[in-house]
C-alpha cells in the first residue's frame, strides 16, 4: 500500500485526531444534555477509564500491526495514540478526584477555603494508599507522565534513540497496571477486564516472541520480514 506522506500528514492524521477526540466530545455533550445514565458522574469516570485502556491497546498494537502488515506509516500514529491514552487517563484521574473525592468532603469553612484544598489532598492521598485498585490505577497514570514529557522530537534527540526506547518500554507496565486496576474494581463480571487483559497480553507476547525467538517466532518474523521487504 503506497500512501504519500502528504496524505498521511494532512488527511489521515487530522481524521484520526478528531476521531480520537470524539469520545470526549460525546461525553461532554451527553453529560450536558442529560444523555448519560441516572448516575452521570459514575459514567464519566468509567468511560474515561475504558477509553484510556482502549488507547493504551491501540498504542501497543501499532508495532505488531506494522510488522504484520508491513505498512510503515503506522508508526506516525503511535505518539498520537499514546498521548490520547494520557489525555483520557488524566480525565479519568480528574473525574475521580472531583466526583469521588472532592464531592465526598466535608466543608467546615465553606467550599472556597484552604481547608478544602488540604482535605482534598488528604482524601486523595489516603485513598491511593489504602485501596489497592486505586494504588494500581494511580501508578499506571504516573507511568504515563514521563512518557508524555519525553514525547517530543526534541526530547527524543536529547535522550538518544536507545535510551528513549528503553524509557518508553514503561508503557508495557502502564498496560498491565491498567488492566489490573480494571480487574480489581469490578464486582463480579470480569469479562471486560479479561478481554483487555487478553489483548494486552497478546500484544506483549508478540514482543516477547520477537525478542526471545521461541517457537512460532521464526514463522511470524519471517512472514513479517518478507512483507516489509516486498513492499
Amino acid at each position: 500500500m503506497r500512501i504519500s506522506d502528504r496524505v498521511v500528514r494532512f488527511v489521515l492524521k487530522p481524521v484520526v485526531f478528531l476521531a480520537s477526540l470524539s469520545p470526549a466530545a460525546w461525553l461532554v455533550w451527553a453529560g450536558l444534555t442529560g444523555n448519560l445514565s441516572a448516575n452521570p458522574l459514575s459514567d464519566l469516570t468509567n468511560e474515561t477509564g475504558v477509553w484510556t485502556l482502549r488507547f493504551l491497546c491501540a498504542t501497543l498494537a501499532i508495532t505488531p500491526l506494522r510488522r504484520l502488515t508491513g505498512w510503515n506509516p503506522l508508526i506516525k500514529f503511535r505518539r498520537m495514540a499514546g498521548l490520547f491514552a494520557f489525555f483520557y487517563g488524566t480525565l479519568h484521574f480528574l473525574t475521580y478526584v472531583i466526583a469521588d473525592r472532592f464531592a465526598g468532603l466535608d466543608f467546615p469553612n465553606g467550599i472556597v477555603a484552604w481547608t478544602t484544598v488540604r482535605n482534598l489532598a488528604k482524601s486523595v492521598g489516603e485513598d491511593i494508599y489504602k485501596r489497592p485498585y486505586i494504588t494500581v490505577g494511580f501508578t499506571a497514570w504516573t507511568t504515563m507522565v514521563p512518557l508524555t514529557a519525553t514525547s517530543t522530537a526534541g526530547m527524543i534527540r536529547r535522550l538518544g534513540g536507545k535510551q528513549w526506547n528503553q524509557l518508553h518500554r514503561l508503557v508495557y507496565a502502564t498496560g498491565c497496571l491498567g488492566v489490573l486496576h480494571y480487574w480489581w474494581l469490578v464486582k463480579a463480571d470480569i469479562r471486560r477486564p479479561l478481554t483487555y487483559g487478553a489483548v494486552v497480553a497478546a500484544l506483549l507476547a508478540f514482543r516477547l516472541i520477537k525478542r526471545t525467538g521461541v517457537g512460532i517466532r521464526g514463522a511470524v518474523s519471517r512472514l513479517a520480514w518478507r512483507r516489509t521487504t516486498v513492499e
Partner: protein
Amino acid sequence: MLIKKPADIKSSEITDKKLYVNRREFIQAATGTAVAAAATGVLGSEALLRASTPAPHGRKLEGIKKSTFSSDEKLNKWEDITTYNNYYEFGTDKDEPSMLARNFKTTPWTVTVDGECAKKGPMNLEDVLKGKTLEERIYRHRCVERWSMIIPWIGFPLSDFIKQCEPTSKAKFVEFTTLGDSKQMPGLRSPVLRWPYVEGLRMDEAMHPLTILVAGLYGEVLPNQDGAPLRLAVPWKYGFKHIKSIVKVRFVEKQPLNTWQDQAANEYGFYANVNPAVDHPRWSQATERRIGEFLMRKTLMFNGYGDQVASLYSGMDLRRNY
C-alpha cells in the same frame, strides 16, 4: 494364529479429513472469531452507546394506604428508578435490565412455599396478594456500590405473608430464590454469579414491620426491571438483599448462603446492614451519592432506620457480621 496389532493411533485422535483438508480456513475462522470476540469486547459499546429506556407506565394499583414508615425526602424520578438497575439476570450494566427485561413474563406467576412450615406448596401471585393491604412505603434505598435513591415502593409487610405460611418453631431463617429462566433472562447465560439468585433473612428481620414484599412503584404495578412481580425491600440493608422476582420462599433452620456471600464472602456478608463504619474492602461506606446530586451524603447507620432495627442486633459484633 492371527495376532492383531493394535492401531498406533486411536481413531478418535485422527483429525477429520475434512478439517485437515480445510485446515487453513479452519485456522482463519478460529482466528477470525477470536479477533472478532476481542474487538467486540474492547470496542463494543458499553453502556453509553445504547439508549436505556424508562419503563412504560403500568396498571394503577387500587386502595393504597399511606404509611408512617415513609420518608419525606425528595423522591427519585421514575426514570432514575427504572433505568439504573442492578439486576444481573438481565445483564450486569445498569441500563441493561431496562432494555432486556421489557418482554419478561410476570403472569402467570407462582411462588412456591417450602421448608419448615405448615402451608407448603405453590401459590398463585393473586393468592399471595389476596387480603393484603397495599401500602406506599417511601424508603431510602442504599446500594453497596455507594449510590442511593428515595423510592416510593408499594407493598405489604412480609410478616403478613409469613404468618399465612405458618412456619414451625424450627424455622429460624427465610430463604428466597429468584426465577432462573435462561430463556427469558439473558444474564443467566454467563456464569457471573451462581444462579439462581438466593437471599435470606433471619426470622426476626423477616417479621420486622419495615420489611416488605413489593408489588408496585409510584402507585403502579412494579416494572420488570425493578423485580416484578414480587420483590423484597429491607431498607436498613444494602440493595443486594432486596431480592427480585421471587419464585420460592423456604423456611430453614440454618442460615442460608446468599448469592453475593457465595461470590465473595470477604466483601459481602449475610447481614449486609448499611453501616458507615464498616468499609467494603475496596471502598469506604461512609458516604454515598444520592442519585441526582453532586455532593455526597453521609451514610447513616442502618440507613437511618436505627431507631426501629438496632435492637435486632444488640450484642452482635457488626464488624464481623457485615
